[in-house]
């Protein structure tokens, strides 16, 4: 979050609402993100029009890149059916981009229910772009924005306008400002990397040259805690995302699987210095506040409810690893999963009503989602290698996970209903342990 805020502040961005039929209330009824039978809305994103006396190749390139970026980002959400530009009746490079001059029949005829138009003007290193969203059936403009910024910030503009579109249609800003941390062994040892929500701009976060695992974002996105063998044993590291300052929790035994308490500079993690493997609550500086779990067996992988009042975790207390939920205030623990003999990696949904986890069945791991009543787990992945480490997008619409469906382990994304499963990125080595940022 902070990372993007800095970039956005550095833009010379002027955003004004463009005049058009005044739409003050957002149309949240366009997309109900909770519906498992979501109908994808057909949307047309034609090439952006270029405002210039004579159109240069750099104009054309920018137009193509901008409209492709916007298309890609909208497609990523799983809400839209992206219409093929080849089928369009209008020459978008010539047609007018404002409502009063658009022939909406030409768009409904190709199946579009939504239309995005763009018109930009390039002046040296700065460009001005007007972006509009239309309801083609109602022939009305839903959103209009004008951005003025440097050419290098094209992606940021597209990310912001994608956010506007998704906010208008769903009432939620979506995933466009989020990032995904994950583990990759491309350099020969497992390290943590961070990419943007759609797998673009991967950069290394750790260069420990040692086994490094289990990244966990604080809820303000400013901190990542993780486990690393940097000093030869599994210690816990708590790193500031922006300035890299780090504190280390180096107790005897294991110091693993951190999870930040929502809205607080506190985290839970599994420590075994007492001889047993239990989950402890710690300050953001790694000082133990109290022990959260008790009893026989291993307790690992805490995941907090969004209100911070409950914590899901894995325990082997009954002999096999299962997901449990601890009520922090009452101290009461309840077992959540009963199907199967190996249920681990719980991830509490941002809305708070569901928990995703990986369950082993027939020797394979798959992603399941279960309600807090523990009844009827829904299997989201099947027939494709091992599928592990589910992590919800901050808006709850998507789930990132790792899968060996193509051989080596890679990061994939699907909707929270299990549809639209696709690989997030293609980089060397194997990727595991994805964690979506707030």
């Amino acid at each position: 979050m902070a990372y993007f805020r800095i970039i956005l502040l550095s833009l010379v961005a002027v955003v004004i609402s463009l005049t058009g039929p005044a739409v003050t209330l957002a149309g949240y009824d366009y997309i109900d993100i909770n519906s498992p039978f979501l109908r994808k809305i057909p949307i047309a994103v034609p090439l952006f029009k270029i405002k210039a006396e004579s159109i240069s190749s750099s104009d054309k390139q920018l137009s193509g890149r901008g409209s492709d970026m916007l298309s890609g980002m909208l497609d990523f959400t799983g809400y839209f059916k992206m219409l093929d530009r080849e089928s369009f009746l209008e020459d978008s490079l010539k047609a007018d981009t404002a409502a009063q001059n658009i022939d909406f029949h030409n768009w409904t005829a190709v199946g579009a229910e939504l239309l995005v138009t763009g018109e930009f003007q390039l002046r040296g290193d700065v460009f001005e772009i007007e972006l509009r969203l239309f309801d083609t059936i109602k022939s009305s403009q839903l959103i209009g924005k004008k951005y003025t910024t440097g050419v290098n910030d094209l992606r940021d503009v597209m990310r912001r306008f994608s956010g506007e579109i998704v906010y208008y249609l769903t009432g939620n800003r979506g995933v466009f400002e989020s990032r995904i941390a994950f583990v990759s062994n491309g350099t020969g040892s497992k390290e943590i990397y961070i990419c943007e929500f759609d797998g673009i701009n991967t950069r290394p976060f750790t260069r420990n040259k040692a086994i490094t695992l289990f990244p966990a974002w604080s809820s303000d996105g400013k901190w990542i805690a993780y486990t690393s063998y940097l000093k030869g044993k599994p210690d816990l590291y708590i790193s500031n995302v922006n300035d890299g300052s780090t504190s280390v929790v180096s107790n005897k035994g294991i110091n693993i699987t951190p999870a930040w308490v929502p809205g607080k500079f506190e985290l839970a993690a599994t420590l075994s210095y007492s001889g047993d493997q239990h989950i402890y609550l710690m300050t953001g500086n790694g000082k133990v506040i109290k022990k959260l779990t008790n009893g026989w067996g291993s307790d690992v992988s805490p995941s907090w409810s969004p209100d911070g009042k409950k914590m899901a975790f894995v325990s082997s207390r009954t002999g096999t690893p299962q997901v449990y939920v601890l009520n922090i205030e009452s101290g009461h623990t309840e077992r959540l999963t009963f199907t199967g003999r190996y249920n681990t990696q719980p991830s509490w949904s941002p809305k708070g009503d569901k928990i995703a986890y990986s369950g082993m069945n027939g020797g394979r791991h798959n992603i399941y989602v279960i309600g807090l009543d523990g009844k009827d787990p829904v299997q989201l992945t099947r027939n494709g290698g091992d599928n592990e480490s589910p992590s919800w997008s901050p808006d709850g619409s998507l789930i990132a996970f790792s899968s060996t469906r193509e051989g080596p382990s890679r990061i994939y994304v699907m909707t929270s209903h299990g549809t639209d499963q696709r690989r997030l990125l293609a980089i060397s080595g194997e990727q595991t342990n994805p964690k979506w940022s707030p």
Partner: protein
Amino acid sequence: MKNRTWIMLALLLSVTVLLFASCSKQTVKADLQDVKDQAKQEPKQAAAASAPAPAPAPVVMKAPEPVGPSAEELAAKAKAAALKTLANEDVFFDFDSAVLSDAAQEVLKNKSAILGKYSGVSVTIEGHCDERGTNEYNLALGERRAESAKKFLVSLGVNASRLKTISYGEEKPVDAGHDEAAWSKNRRAHFAAD
């Protein structure tokens, strides 16, 4: 008369033996010294010198060779072999289990005997898992495997201060394969002398 002859003979013999003995000691020393010097200068000549054929020394001189340094060498060899056994023989586990099978206990008893004999040796017990579980839980399981091996050794009388444990979970498989043959090798407690 007969008795005196016997006494004389006996005396003569013992003097001869003494002479030979002192003489051979010196010669052996000189001979060993010689070999060492040669070894320093020219390894090939040293090899030749230690070969039996060209040695000009009488047969008697060879007798004292196995004394002193050789015994130490033997002991060192035996210790090295014991430590190798300690490191090479892994303790194996069932899937999702840190319970010691009969076979695992036998391996550990052998290790306990070695550790009992070589009281100066400390070890790190590494707990490992196969790739099938998830890596968070496996890191915990690896620690339980290392700890159960440690507990068993302590119960056999090995001092706990000589036994460190570390878990690598599923991060360091000994066999990179993706079948039971590989997995069964990877579910292990491995010993490394410190």
